[in-house]
């Protein structure tokens, strides 16, 4: 009872008989992932949105007051990395919106 794709080539990596081993391997790792993702990747609760807007205003004010000159290079690099990660979420959203991984399947 192997999936159809296995009948054409051998050795076949998709044996159903290896499924329980795969599940046993991934269960604890999924648990760790879920443990961190519940806190770190969770969307903002409605109560956090005003806090986010406040931090945005504070950021704008700090740029205006010239605190930019006191940034260390390390802090600037860290902020740059965080900004890059936020930008990558846009591309992931685009993948979801165009319903294809690479290119537009028109």
């Amino acid at each position, binding site marked *: 009872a192997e999936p159809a794709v296995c009948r054409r080539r051998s050795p076949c990596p998709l044996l159903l008989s290896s499924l329980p081993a795969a599940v046993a391997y991934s269960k604890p790792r999924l648990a760790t992932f879920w*443990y961190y993702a519940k806190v*770190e990747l969770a969307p903002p609760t409605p109560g956090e949105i005003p806090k986010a807007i406040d931090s945005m205003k504070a950021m704008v004010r700090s740029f205006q007051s010239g605190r930019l000159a006191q940034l260390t290079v390390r802090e600037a690099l860290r902020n740059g990395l965080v900004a890059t*990660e936020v930008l990558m979420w846009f591309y*992931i959203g685009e993948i*979801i919106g*165009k319903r294809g991984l690479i290119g537009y399947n028109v």
Partner: protein
Amino acid sequence: MIPPVQVSPLIKFTRYSALLVGMIYGKKRYDYLKPIAEEERRIEAEEKKKREELERIAKELAEASEDSILK
């Protein structure tokens, strides 16, 4: 295990709004590109038909005009 990091609400908010904006952008661009691609495919199919017609005529002419006793 080390406890998970408390992400600042600003970062969470911008992440998920970037995700939403990306989804909308992808959908809009897909809807824009789809009719253009269909139009191109239609034009390509027509041109192909015309080309094949011309080739067929040329082939028939060539076959009719070559005379050889080896046929």
